Structure formats: C-alpha cells, structure tokens
C-alpha cells in the first residue's frame, strides 16, 4: 500500500544555521496512529511542521497524498493535514465556538450548506452542543483545547497532528484526549502525536517514532520501543511506570512488554492469581 505521508531523506536547516532534523525517512499509512517521542529540542516539532508545509525541507522531499509539500501552499496542505497547536490561544480568536468551528471551512471558500454539515459533524463528534455560543476564552483550558481540535477537525483533514495534547491537562482532560484520538482513528484519520506523555502512548499502544538529536533513532510498535533499554536511555525517556514495574517482576511473561494496568490484570487473571479484584484496576 502506498503511504499517505512519505518523508524521504529530509533534512531541515534553520536560517540561523541549526540543523533541526537530519536525513529523516518515514512512511505513514492510512489509518495509523503515530506517536513522536523525544526530549525537548530533538526535532519533533520541526519534523511535523513539514507535514503541512509550515516548514519546507532544505534537503529531501515530502509527499502528502499526491502533493509535494515544497510546491503546495500551506493553506491547501492544511485542508489535508490539520495541525493542532500546543497552546489553543494561538489558534482561537473568534467570539463564539460556532464561528470558530466554521472558520477553517470559510477559509477554504466552501459553500454554506457544506460548512453547515461539517460544523454539525464536529459538534456531534465533540459533543459541543451546549457551548456553541460561548466565547472560547471563557472556557477552561481543556475545553478550549477541545474547541481548537474541533475547529481543525471541522475541515475534516486526512491527517491530524496534535502537538503535546496532554500537556497542562488534568486527569479528566488527558482521558478525554485519549478518547478523542481513538475517535479520530475510528473516523478514519491518520493521527500524529507529539508527546511526552508515556502513559498516553501506553494506552494507545501505537506506532512510536523516537527522535534524538535531530535524528530518528527508533520507529516501531510502542511495546518494542519501550522494551529497548538502549534506545530509551539514549533518548532520555522512561517507559510508563507500569511497564517499569512489570520489567522488574520476574513472574510476568518476560517476552512481553506490559503497557497498561489492564494488560497486567489480564495476565494475572489468566494465571489465576488470587489477589486480583476485577474492576479496581485503575
């Protein structure tokens, strides 16, 4: 199958001479959820900013769908690659949630009925019925983030890029992000996540790309990456606590990497451990 996003030997050098990414190769296929991990300054954001053309590669080539990002306008690429910024305040500015949702579609000069159906779909998916007339700035930060995501989603791009979606969110907000990512996947979108939230990746159990010092050092399933001590240490990452715990207890299956509490409970139930009470897992 042809990859939807294809990154070929891409390097990016900023005008100040800093090389932020070096010789990256990456294929992202339809329906995939890809998490990009790495310490601050490792080039994660630089990489994903290439997907919607905010940055153009100084070497190599990126194809999104059938478009070469070097030749297309950002506004056109953005209709295919939705980018949710870390701080919703950078993106939202209209006085009501409804206008905010319609804004992207209006920029694409869609006809009114089309906008209406798309906005309605976003409202349904994000359950925003009660907040339509609220000013986004009156909402709390996780709600505002949701509005920002919904407004990107209203354009219904093929790819959704989330830049640190759980940073600064409370437990409820994090759980909601997890739900939303699953929902995006169900709706057939490709999701690209930049995050430091190992718990989130563990729960998603998705493909994980690790960046370190401008280079891609790993690209595999989360369970494989998390069990590779060398890579984790090199990138300065720590697997989720439950994974660390399971790695130190010998009676668990050593060939497997446990990413979630549920997976451990399942193992215990399967092995008839007596002290497991179903339903108190999380």
């Amino acid at each position, binding site marked *: 199958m042809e990859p939807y996003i294809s990154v070929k030997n891409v390097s990016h*050098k900023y005008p100040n001479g800093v090389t932020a990414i070096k010789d990256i190769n990456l294929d992202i296929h339809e329906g995939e959820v890809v998490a990009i991990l790495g310490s601050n300054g490792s080039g994660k954001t630089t990489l994903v*900013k290439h997907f*919607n053309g*905010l940055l*153009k590669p*100084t*070497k190599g080539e990126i194809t999104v769908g059938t478009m070469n990002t*070097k030749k297309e*306008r*950002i*506004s056109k690429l*953005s*209709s295919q690659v*939705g*980018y*949710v*910024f870390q*701080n919703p*305040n*950078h*993106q*939202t*500015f209209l006085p009501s949630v409804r206008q905010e949702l319609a*804004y*992207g579609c209006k*920029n*694409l000069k869609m006809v009114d009925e089309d906008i209406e159906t798309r906005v309605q779909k976003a409202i349904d998916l994000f359950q925003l019925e009660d907040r339509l007339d609220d000013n986004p*700035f009156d909402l709390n930060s996780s709600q505002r983030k949701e509005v920002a995501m919904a*407004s*990107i989603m209203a*354009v219904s791009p093929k790819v959704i890029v989330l830049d640190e979606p759980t940073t600064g969110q409370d437990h409820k907000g994090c759980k909601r992000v997890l739900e939303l990512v699953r929902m995006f996947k169900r709706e057939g979108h490709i999701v690209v996540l930049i995050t430091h939230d190992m718990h989130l990746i563990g729960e998603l159990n998705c493909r994980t790309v690790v960046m370190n010092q401008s280079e891609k050092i790993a690209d595999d399933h989360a369970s494989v990456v998390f069990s590779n001590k060398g890579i984790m240490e090199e990138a300065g990452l720590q697997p989720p606590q439950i994974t660390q715990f399971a790695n130190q207890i010998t009676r668990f299956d050593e060939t497997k990497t446990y990413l979630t509490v549920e997976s451990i409970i399942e193992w215990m139930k399967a092995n008839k451990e007596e002290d497991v009470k179903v339903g108190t897992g999380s």
Partner: protein
Amino acid sequence: MNSLYMPKDSLIHSLDPRTKMLFVVFVVASSFILNDPALQLVFLVALFPLVVMAKVVKPYLISIQFLLLFAVLIMTVHGIYNPIGVTPVFEIFGGLTFKYESMVYASVMSFRILVIGTAAVLFVMTTHPSDMASALVKWKVPHSFAFILLSTFQIIPIIAREAKIVMEAQQARCLDVKGSLIQRVKNLVPMFAPLFIITFMKVHQLSYVLECRAFSRKGEKTSLRETKIGSLDYTFLLGMLGVLAFEIYLKLFMMGSLHLTTDALLTYSLFGTWIVFGFMIIKFVVKQFQGKIGGAN
C-alpha cells in the same frame, strides 16, 4: 536576555550607560548644529571608529541597511522633486533633473538619519538593558518608569516570536497568507486578535510575577548590576564637550568661509547610496533565488 544587546568586551561596553545616553544626546544635537552635508558626512565617518572599537561592525551594518533605505528614498525623491531646488546639477533620463538646493536639503536629512541611527544602534548594542535601567534610576527616574523602558526592550522579541507562532497557527487553519492585497489586509484580524490577547495575558502574568517579588515595595532598591562613572567616562565626556565646542565655533565663525559642499560631493554621495542599495537588492534577489531552487547549501 533577548534584545539587541551584543555582549562584547570593549571600551564602549565598559562605559557607563549614562555616558552613552549623553553621547546619544550629543550626537542628536550635533546633527542639528552641523547643518551641512559635508560636515555631517565627516561626522558620520568619525563615528565609525567607535563602532569598530565596540566590535559590533557586522550587526551594525546589518541594522543600518534599513536606515539606508530611507536615505536612498529621501535623496532620490527630494533631489528631483523638492521645489526649493533651482540650480540644476545633472540630468538623468526623461528630463528628471537633480537640483543643488534640494540635494543639499535631502543629504542633510538623510545623513542626519544615518548619524542618529548610528549613535542609537551603538547605544543599544553596547548597553545591557538592565544597566540602562539602573543608570536611569541613579538619575532619579522613578523605578517603575525605568522598568517600563526595560520591559519594552524585552517584550518586543517575545511578541515577534509569538507573532510567528500565531501566523503558523492560522495558516494551519487554512488561512491563505499569500493572497491578494485585500485578502492580506483581512488577514490582519486573525493575526492580531490572538496576538493582542496573548500579549495582554503575558503582561498581566508579568504584573503578578513582579508583585510576588516585591516590585512595588517603597524605598531604596539595590541593583544586581552596579554601574559606576569612572575616569574613562570623564575622558569620553570631556572629548564630547570639546567636539561640541568646536562644532559651535565652526557654526558661528567659520560657516561663511567654509565651502565643503560641492556638486561632486553631493553627486558622489547620491551615487554611493545607489550603489550600496543596488548591492542590497542583488543580495536579496540572490537569496530569493536560492530559496526557490531549494536551498543550495
């Protein structure tokens, strides 16, 4: 610290900010006393060794480019169209004639901009913003006012950075920033609305942070960076006074017998700015071209 300040070890850097502020005032005054293109040119050239001494030649030349744009515009447009001109100097194609009086006027204007610009750039690049604030406080400027000046220096780069992010964030919402002129004017709303809101939020936050650190406490404050006027400052100040006295002497007694401003000088300085401007355009075009063919480096 995110400002234009260039930390270097030089004589100019070690001067007290107050001396340098007086220096800027002195240069502004001089540029008005020396109301003659030739003398101003001499003055401009005389300032250059200070730039070299401060070791900021390259950043100075980069920032002075923008002022040169003004100079080119003023010298060309005024030289041809200013109605005070009567004596033709030379003609370019299409019957457009540069006239002596208007060229003098234009040269005085543009050299003044360059001279004052040089002094200002020299001051900003060699003075740590905090030093400036503490020097102002020593001059009995209210502490909060000094802080306003200081924070302006700091907030401009912050706003510039935020503006870039907002721009990207709006483009990610399918905003076409390369549209027609009308479209671009319309785009100012999605650009500036978030920018204003974010800036207000930041300033609001800053006020809390300041209060948490006892900013509005009454009474004396100490400064982490102490500034002191030393013998170097006195020498510099004396030098400035000397030059100022000489300028006034020139102005009062010598103006009648000095005729340094000739047609040739005016023409050459006009051509000079054109040539430098031409280089800037060539450099710009080459850069654009390199960008188009996809980064040759």
